[in-house]
């Protein structure tokens, strides 16, 4: 195990290195000049040049990348071009909010998605199954912005059950997490349904039923662990999708997460922030996948960590 873990961690480090290099290249060749953004419209060419030199952006690519990497190794993510603040500080200030939201949302997603998937599989072909299918497709097809705003409007403005956006308490978390949960549950429910149907016709399910186990136990104890394996891999993947998709929900609910930071940075080509957020989310994704891989053998003993 530790050997496996070490090897995987080493691989993860390589992946992160790759991510940093590719992102750096992409941002380098991007047809837009960050300095002009910083300098603003009234800057004289001299001022622009000064800023470029100050930021080291006049250096060749490899030097810039080398410097960045060197800083990264020392835990220095660089300074934001436009906010003139440590990127690490900026990210650290927002990371807890994002993690909270992600945790809450994944929980909602799983609870909603798995339940829907299981129920649909059990009611296969009936009206309820069809209904749930439509629901799950609505969930994946729905524009995030509209759903977020709709939920906010109904549950916060009209009913007043939750605050209209903001961050801090659990009641602030509920709406954005549920929104993301609803939007993401479609995937899970379809995957779960498909996987569950497969499992339900295995011989061992018949054995379990022959033992006179309750329906609940047959489903939860026998079918679920077998069916959930592909879903576990999904959760790892989901973190990546999340990092990209969290922006809209964060901004509608005024949730001070990384998504908004990244969004603004992308709009203004604040490269250190883009790099920082990319690295952090890449870390999260890599860790999520590692975790999913580590958990898999506990669910299915046939899987061996090699």
């Amino acid at each position, binding site marked *: 195990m530790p050997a496996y873990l070490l090897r995987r961690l080493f691989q993860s480090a390589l992946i992160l290195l790759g991510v940093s290099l590719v992102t750096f290249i992409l941002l380098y060749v991007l047809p837009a000049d960050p300095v002009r953004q910083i300098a603003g419209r009234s800057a004289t060419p001299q001022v622009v040049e000064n800023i470029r030199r100050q930021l080291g952006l006049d250096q060749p690519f490899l030097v810039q990348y080398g410097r960045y990497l060197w800083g990264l190794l020392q835990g220095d993510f660089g300074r934001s071009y436009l906010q003139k603040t440590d990127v690490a500080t900026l990210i650290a200030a927002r990371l807890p909010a994002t993690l909270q939201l992600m945790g809450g949302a994944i929980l909602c997603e799983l609870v909603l998605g798995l339940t829907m998937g299981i129920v649909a599989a059990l009611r296969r072909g009936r009206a309820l199954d069809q209904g749930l299918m439509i629901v799950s497709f609505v969930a994946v097809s729905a524009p995030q912005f509209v759903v977020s705003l709709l939920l906010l409007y109904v549950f916060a403005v009209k009913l007043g059950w939750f605050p209209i956006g903001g961050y801090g308490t659990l009641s602030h978390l509920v709406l954005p997490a549920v929104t993301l949960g609803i939007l993401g549950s479609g995937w899970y429910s379809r995957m779960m349904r498909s996987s569950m149907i497969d499992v339900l016709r295995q011989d061992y399910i018949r054995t379990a039923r022959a033992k006179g186990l309750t329906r609940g136990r047959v489903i939860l104890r026998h079918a679920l662990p077998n069916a959930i394996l592909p879903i576990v891999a999904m959760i790892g993947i989901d973190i990546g999708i999340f990092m990209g998709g969290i922006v809209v929900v964060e901004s509608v609910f005024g949730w001070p997460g990384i998504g*908004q930071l990244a969004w603004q940075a992308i709009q203004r080509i604040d490269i250190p922030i883009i790099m920082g957020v990319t690295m952090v989310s890449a870390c999260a994704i890599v860790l999520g996948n590692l975790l999913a891989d580590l958990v898999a053998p506990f669910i299915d003993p046939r899987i061996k960590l090699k």
Partner: protein
Amino acid sequence: QDYTPDPNARPGGAITITYKDDVATLDPAIGYDWQNWSMIKSIFDGLMDYVPGTTELRPGLAEGYEISEDGLTYTFKLRPGVTFHNGREMVAEDVKYSLDRVTLPETQSPGAGFFASIKGFDAISDGSATTLEGVTVVDPATVRIELSRPDATFLHVMALNFASVVPKEAVEAAGADFGKQPVGTGAFRLGEWTLGQRLVFEKNADYWRDGVPYLDSIVFEVGQEPIVALLRLQNGEVDVPGDGIPPAKFTEVMADPAQAERVVEGGQLHTGYITLNVTQPPFDDLKVRQAVNMAINKQRITQIINGRAVPATQPLPPSMPGYTEGYEGYPHDVEKAKALLAEAGFADGFETELYVMNTDPNPRIAQAIQQDLSQIGIKAAIQSLAQANVIEAGGNGSAPMIWSGGMAWIADFPDPSNFYGPILGCAGAAEGGWNWSKFCDEALDAKATEADSLADPARAEERLKLWSDVYMGVMEKAPWVPVFNEQRYTMKSARMGGDDSLYVDPVSIPVNYDYVFVTE
């Protein structure tokens, strides 16, 4: 000429203002977007200031000033007894320090260029000096600033945020993070700043202007969608949505008298325009540019943005001094436009590209422009890109046409010169400059320089006339299609008090924090 505050104003209370974007920095040398502009104005002061709600200059930290005969030397007398938020008294040394700081390359101030007329600017910006030669501390209460050339806008420059006076010790203590721990002399001090969530401004009880500010504190909540901010306003949780009324809600709000009553409308120093790259065929042909000017249906474009603007005739907005009254601009005349195109040899039109920033409503406006152009046979493909990409394309001269919306000119200060230099003058036409038309007319440039050397306040009329001529000259050459001047609509909660002009203050968006108050 000073301002008489509202007699009904009462001190106390707190208000909440929301923004979508996070506040980038409160460092006056760095902050250069409209959102932190007004915030910095309330935390810091410069030597000069504006009368609230107007574009009229008034002394700020300077009690008074003298301008030498040749207009090259400004001597400012500082107000006594002004203290920074850290309790120390502000002295002339601080003014010099602040001006040095903003012009030093290390500071990376986007506003350094504004100070180019001060003697010694070139030396400091190429690194051969560390202090501005032209700024002298005469005594603790007197600063003398010498210019290398006459500059009629200099007092406006001294009212810019970039010219704010900062205390050296606080800047040095905060190091690079001064923008997050600002210390100034302003009406408010920064109380709390939770990154990405909220900022709280607290009243500076020792503020040197008597009676103001009224509010005890201002809470800025960031990261909020404008639409949600409006919902919260309607719910009584927010006092002013900083990003204004979202277009999607505008008609709804205006249709409801109870809400419309709380909307303040005003002009702003803004012009939305299309740049035509005069160095690229076919826009190198004046007739083509004139044809384009005649093809655009400005009336319809204003309709598309729900009438939140007035059609523009010239580069300057109507509220800007120097605006040429009575000038009709190019008429909307499709037939004549076609004829002009034909004369230029493009009877069948041509294909080109129109760059636009990708935030609503700009792509929409671009599409309206596209349709207008198609009426005279010009097929413009739209390139709707992120702001940075448009600026890049404009700067390197690869964009034949750019719709300026979203990146457009909101004046830094209310002076006609502010609309010329970087965006219409030869200096801005260089590679990377902001003159996206790459328009450069030596004669007009000379006239502009002449106007700006008329620093004598007595000759202000004459100067404005000169500027008016410059812009008329520009219109003749038609490097731009001025489309509209945006109107400002600020919505406020019912409890907000203060004159309407404070809510459409031309230099403090969305509101002039120092003078507004709450009525309950």
